[in-house]
């Protein structure tokens, strides 16, 4: 009988490789050394948080959520409430309780509280939603998104309704963005290798057998729902401090669609897929955005028509769904022992197929 290496020892190469990828992205920004490009990279880091957060629930549970951007909205507005200078919010957000409107919290404390705020609502919504599976569950999460959006679009004195609220300190720079993305990756990794992560993936494969193995599926789903809701909340808070200005419609269908596309393109069931999906699709988007603006050839400017970007993203997603439904990573994790883009999956199908690589003994 051979003792088995611990799950951490078997899988640790995945978060290390993902960290290296994030560092490379940050390095690219330093190398280009251009303000606008750096902002693009910060946005990429926030996207990484969003998509990694989505993966934590969707990838492990197999239930597609259309609602998580709602938690991002909550995190963003919460940090706005806490950090806009009292002189401004006393007038613009008259409905806030005094303790909030008279005080201004530090960046890090505010982000923490905003994350918890999103987590509390994820728990409350999750209590109800986790009992639903498959398409029913997905539609219910969509209803949740619509509810959240409606509240934030109408509660004039607390959210400013559809007019934008301003005065949020712009604190999210390259390294805060990087730290956020890195933290999201670490939390998602730790969840995936936790007892709850394993139990939830078993239920994703075979719900009936999971219950027969003693797994309380609703309870494990709720844990994942809260963890992912909190990652989204933190992403929203960092995004608020990146933009400085908020409107509720920034957290609605457009962002939901693009983030889910990134997850699908990368590979829904793997953490590596979430990161790879963001990096690849962001690169394509950036390229097309540049081409839409136009490039000068001789004394003529040549440009793609506006909207090419959106159409191309849709196209990429459809092509991936047809030719590689398990995403660019084939739902496997990046690890030392192989490279999922090459021969790994056919050669040693046994080792790493699920969530974080479970049996990478090679």
């Amino acid at each position, binding site marked *: 009988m051979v003792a*088995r290496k611990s799950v951490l020892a078997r899988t640790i190469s995945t978060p290390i490789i993902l960290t290296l990828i994030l560092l490379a992205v940050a390095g690219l920004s330093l190398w280009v050394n251009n303000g606008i490009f750096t902002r693009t990279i910060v946005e990429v880091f926030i996207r990484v948080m969003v998509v990694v957060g989505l993966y934590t629930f969707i990838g492990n549970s197999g239930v597609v959520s259309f609602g998580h951007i709602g938690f991002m909205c909550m995190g963003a507005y919460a940090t706005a409430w806490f950090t806009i200078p009292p002189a401004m919010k006393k007038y613009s957000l008259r409905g806030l309780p005094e303790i909030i409107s008279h005080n201004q919290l530090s960046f890090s404390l505010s982000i923490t509280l905003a994350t918890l705020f999103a987590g509390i609502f994820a728990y409350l919504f999750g209590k109800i939603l986790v009992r639903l599976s498959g398409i029913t569950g997905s539609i219910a999460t969509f209803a949740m998104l619509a509810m959240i959006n409606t509240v934030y679009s109408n509660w004039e004195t607390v959210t400013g309704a559809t007019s934008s609220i301003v005065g949020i300190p712009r604190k999210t720079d390259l390294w805060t963005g990087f730290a956020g993305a890195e933290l999201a990756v670490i939390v998602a990794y730790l969840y995936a290798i936790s007892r709850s992560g394993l139990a939830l993936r078993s239920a994703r494969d075979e719900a009936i057998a999971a219950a*027969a193995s003693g*797994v309380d599926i609703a309870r494990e789903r709720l844990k994942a729902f809260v963890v992912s809701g909190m990652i989204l909340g933190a992403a929203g808070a960092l995004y608020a401090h990146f933009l400085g200005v908020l409107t509720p419609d920034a957290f609605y269908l457009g962002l939901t669609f693009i983030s889910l596309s990134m997850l699908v393109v990368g590979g829904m069931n793997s953490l590596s897929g979430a990161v790879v999906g963001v990096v690849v699709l962001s690169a394509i988007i950036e390229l097309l955005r540049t081409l839409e603006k136009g490039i000068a050839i001789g004394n003529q400017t040549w440009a793609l028509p506006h909207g090419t970007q959106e159409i191309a993203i849709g196209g990429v997603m459809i092509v991936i769904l047809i030719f590689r439904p398990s995403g660019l990573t084939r739902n496997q994790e990046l690890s030392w022992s192989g490279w999922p883009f090459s021969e790994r999956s056919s050669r040693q199908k*046994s080792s790493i*197929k699920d969530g974080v690589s479970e049996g990478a003994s090679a």
Partner: protein
Amino acid sequence: MTESLTTENVTVTFDGLTALSKVDLSVPKRSVTGLIGPNGAGKTTLVNVLTGFQAPTAGRVTMDGADLGAKPAHKIRHLGIARTFQSGRLFSDLSVVDNLEVTGVGLGLSRRKASAKAVEMLDWMGISSLAERTAGGLPYTDERRVAIGRALMLEPKYLLLDEPAAGMSAEEADDLSRLIARIVSEIGCGVLLIEHNIGMVLKTCDDIHVLDSGKIIEVGPPAVIKASEKVRHAYMGTQVETEGEVL
């Protein structure tokens, strides 16, 4: 008080169709109870009732004297009633050892402890070589054995096997018989064995219940079942083979 898993007067109807009708069945600890009957007799439905997957329309289930009430399936497993499925239902994306580890984790162990128990169990069953294989790609017989290993994690009190020998060769079925004997003698489980391989059932079981159209039509030790007119009648037309003779 005898230790047993028991149904009392259990009836299950699916809008109009009576799948089980006033079934009394008892699975004592440290013995093998057989459950045979033609397809559609209600055998799987009975296992579903015993494991919390199907609420009985009437009647109740008790374990060692205590009413199980309307507990959900995962809680029933925590009480020590484990099962396998006719269709296998392994976690196909997970490795074999992780399939077993899920039960350990589901029952509250840390991953480290669950993993160690899983390795031990595979060793006990003599299938350590399968540990790192992906469950989805296993041959049929191995799949069955892994499913039994997964159910046996942390030594349940009762183990319900739904047609575990289906599709096995005679030798493989013999191996399975020996495994079941070890499960009873070494782990002390009460085993319920559902099987169409009547030869195996007669050889392996201490007591056999015969179910036909939702009713228990005969109960007794193998010799009684072998001789029963009613059983012969129920199986008419299906011609179930025993070793050499037609039951």
